[in-house]
């Protein structure tokens, strides 16, 4: 049952100076759905995600989460909405000055609701969910490999069991084996939490493993949206070229023309 709209975007515009990035984006994400936003580099996928989170202010348009408008919302409203989110950033974005357990428990720590021992125990349990051992608890991000950083980032995103999960290029910079592990962990986490998920990616293997639905951004607009299954047989020439990674086609001509 996916009738409730969790995230709704209407007529969203965003430019940086004369560079028009998003021009009239419309998108609905239903409760419990896992959607992947695909598109070539620089097409504004991450900008869209940051607009929903309120990290970037769009020029115009609307983005609602559970019916609450996030564009132009007050700080308090934004904070209330952000509590529903867990976010895995492209590079992990772990805090360099904090050990792993404090990174994972950062939000809890600010609330002062649990003792240090309790926080460490929750961190240990969350680490187990992403297949990391207790021994990494006291390591610092600089002491971790790229794959481990992504897993700790994922642990931080799911630590307080959010209803919405955002993943920004979760497998970028990782080898295929580690990418596969991360994809599986993400899918498991989304299923276990029953969360609504939005993944930004141009790694089609990742999209196939994580997502149910796919939307493609091209030339500042969402040009196609459908299921992962439909994606494989789509006859839209741009989507077809991108999904199958073909070296020639309309995307190549478009890239050469700009």
């Amino acid at each position, binding site marked *: 049952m996916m009738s409730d709209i969790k995230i709704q975007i209407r007529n969203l515009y965003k430019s940086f100076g004369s560079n028009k990035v998003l021009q009239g984006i419309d998108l609905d994400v239903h409760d419990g759905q896992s959607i992947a936003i695909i598109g070539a580099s620089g097409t504004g996928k991450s900008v869209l995600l*940051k607009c929903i*989170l309120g990290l970037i202010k769009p020029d115009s348009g609307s983005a609602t989460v559970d019916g609450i408008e996030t564009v132009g919302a007050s700080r308090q409203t934004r904070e209330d909405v952000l509590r529903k*989110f867990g*976010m895995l*950033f492209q590079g992990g*974005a*772990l*805090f*360099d000055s904090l050990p792993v357990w404090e990174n994972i428990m950062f939000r809890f720590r*600010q609330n002062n609701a649990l003792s240090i021992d309790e926080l460490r125990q929750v961190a240990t349990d969350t680490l187990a969910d992403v297949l990391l051992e207790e021994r990494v608890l006291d390591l610092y991000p600089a002491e971790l490999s790229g794959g481990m950083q992504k897993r700790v980032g994922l642990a931080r995103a799911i630590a307080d069991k959010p209803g919405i999960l955002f993943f920004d290029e979760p497998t970028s910079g990782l080898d295929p084996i580690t990418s596969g592990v991360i994809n599986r962990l993400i899918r498991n986490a989304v299923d276990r939490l029953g969360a609504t998920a939005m993944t930004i990616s141009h790694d089609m293997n990742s999209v196939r493993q994580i997502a149910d639905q796919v939307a493609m951004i091209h030339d500042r607009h969402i040009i196609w949206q459908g299921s992962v299954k439909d994606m494989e047989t789509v006859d839209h020439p741009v989507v077809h070229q991108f999904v199958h990674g073909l070296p020639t086609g309309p995307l190549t001509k478009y890239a050469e023309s700009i």
Partner: protein
Amino acid sequence: MQVLQIPGRAALSMLSEIGRLSLFIGQAIFWLVRPPWYGRQILRQIIDIGYFSLPVVGLTTMFSGMVIALQSYTGTERFSAEGETSVATVVVLIITRELGPVLAGLMVAGRIGAAMAAEIGTMRVTDQIDALDTLSTRPMQYLIAPRVIAGTICLPFLVLIGDIIGVFGGYVIAVYQLGFSPSVYLSGTLEYLEAFDVIIGLIKAAVFGFIVAIMGCYFGYHSGRGAEGVGRATTNAVVYSAILILVFDFVITGFAFVR
């Protein structure tokens, strides 16, 4: 008309930067006085700024005291025979009123302002600041306010210790190289020194500490992308801190001593 475009654009860019900096300072002050205060962050910054800057500030003020003692002796010798008293007075007044706070400010700008800009700039380019935001923590409150509080609190203490070390440096030169009597030198040090001189030096130090922290945080927070952006932020933080320290030194001195 094209001739006017370049200065016009530069003026607009400068005004825009001043506006952005003013907003940043306003926000920083706003969040300074609102809970929650991040005690661990404040303590970490106090240790970084206060404790770890002590050697560099101590060395600088000590050698400055020694140089002032030598220079004032060779200078006053040309027109006055009362070198012992005047050297001590010149050393203590210059150190407490002027060189103590200015040198400490410049040293801390080089050491801490640059580090703040680099750390916050790196956090910006690696999305750590956005991550803070998504974890319902206000970056201005978590990152900026503790640094500004620590900078403003620590500089006066550093300067106070630097003043004592600087005067000691002058004493060492005066007694062991110039052959002055220790008791005469010490009485010369205290005779003309007023509490007002020290207090003005400490007020200057607090202002300089605020400037260093704000500029480090501001340029780091608005750092451009990549290593080049962080590098430029670091350079700007030090350069603008140094310029503002000298400007405000003049302004405060003008208000305090010119009647």
